[in-house]
């Protein structure tokens, strides 16, 4: 897809996110020169161990966006079953329908051109609250979340405090 289509759509999404932002989410291009690289800030959902944290992440869009999804990577430390050690987020909405690494994601949950940055970020926010341990990206975290919930929550809270510089 012509990249002008992709950038126009990203402009439109950016404007819509700025004038009508969802709760706990901000996002936008990092610099004026490259509309295909965004930074996002996600608030940790209330009532979860992530509460009170602010999680920065970067989104990289392909030139044929929205035919294919962007990739999303947390820039800080996030201890979570669906986040790789390098911060890469593994969630079904970020997987193109033809590309199913684990073979048990429903097609309806996967990327489609009608999805948007806003929907991705909302999905990631709810992923923080409810991990999906069927297709873990961080096997250690998934095990801990399943078997030693208390320890998992303590570890997450410590991470949040460290990222805020209060411990």
């Amino acid at each position, binding site marked *: 897809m012509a990249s002008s289509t992709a950038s126009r759509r990203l402009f439109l999404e950016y404007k*819509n996110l700025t004038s009508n932002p969802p709760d706990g989410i901000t996002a936008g291009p990092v610099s004026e020169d490259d509309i295909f690289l965004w930074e996002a800030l996600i608030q940790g959902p209330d009532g979860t161990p992530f509460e009170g944290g602010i999680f920065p992440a970067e989104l990289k869009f392909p030139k044929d966006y929205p035919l294919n999804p962007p990739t999303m990577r947390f820039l800080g430390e996030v201890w979570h079953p669906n986040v790789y050690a390098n911060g890469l987020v593994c969630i079904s909405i970020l997987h193109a329908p033809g590309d199913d690494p684990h073979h048990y994601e429903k*097609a309806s949950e996967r990327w*489609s051109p009608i999805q948007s940055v806003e929907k991705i970020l909302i999905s990631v926010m709810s992923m923080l609250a409810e991990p999906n341990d069927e297709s873990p990206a961080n096997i250690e975290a998934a095990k801990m979340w399943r078997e030693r919930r208390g320890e998992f929550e303590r570890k997450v809270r410590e991470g949040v405090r460290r990222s805020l510089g209060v411990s």
Partner: protein
Amino acid sequence: MDSSFNVADSSDWLETPLSYLAPVEQVLRCQVCKDFFDTPMITSCSHTFCSLCIRRCLTNDGRCPVCRANDQEMKLRSNAIIQELVDVFQTARPIVLQLGKEVKATRDGLVKRAKKRKIEDTDIDDEENVDKPYNGRRKTRSQQQSNPFVVEPSMDQAMGDQKDGDLQPDDGLAACPICKARMKEEAVFTHLDIHNKPETVAQAEAEQSRLTILLHFFISILISVNANCDSRRPRTKRELLHELDIWDKTQGRQVYNSSNGGGGSSSVMDKDFDGAAWATSHDSDFQNLIARARRKTKPKAEDIRTTEESNVPVPEHSNGNEILPNHILLASKITDDPDRVPQAQQDNVTSAARNRPVEVPFVDLEPED
């Protein structure tokens, strides 16, 4: 990058009192490119996208982006009416959006002004309290006065203030406390509206009713177009336009009347319409019209063009529009005859004028300064 702030987007409506137009606009945008539909095509599963967008998607994975049903490019069919809908909407969009922003600005201004007035009134009270003997009474009055929307107290006190030395003639009539015109007691309240309503409120109301009519007009277009899409025997464009014309003459008028008459303000058609007060409050307009008429008859000998350019004052936008009901203005634009007067519009709309395509006349609907 700057262009990101200039792109039109459905969230533009959210800053205006017309936020309910945001979802209307969203429906007119392709879910893939998020732009207004460009050559809309409908899939076998009845979802509509820009031709380019859906062809790219189908080439990519052969599925509808909304429901993921399999589909093929050769099964796509044009959804022409959506294109027309997008075209008329886009033509009207900047005008309606501008009106919405103006209404917002007027409202914000009103709130500020009301606050300012309150502060000023308190200052005056302090000064007055020094030398007025009945300062307690004065204070309550002034406080009441600070609210421009309360009719009764301001009338009572104004009567008290002004009639102190005057003897009232015993004619069974009551005087307007402001212009002192005499009338039946029950007519005073409606009459007072003319004095009490701040100009900006009246303007805001006029804008509001204009917007209501435009909005209903859009909705009616949407309804007829959608119904036509479902129909097994779609009506022709001519028939659709004829229906719209009928709508304008029936519901359009009702919309206008309800948005105008609801607030209890007297209308020219009312039985107890206060003609004298109307004449007083619109005196300057009438004088202006008379002056212009005189000027037009006079300069036969001189060069008419230069006289008009130099002397004739530009008529004010609001005055011109308040005389004609808005839907009639709209209708006269649609029949492409700007000189049509209301009576003529009601009776003899020629079928030729009525059946002109909608998209052309809308271009004329440009805001005047």
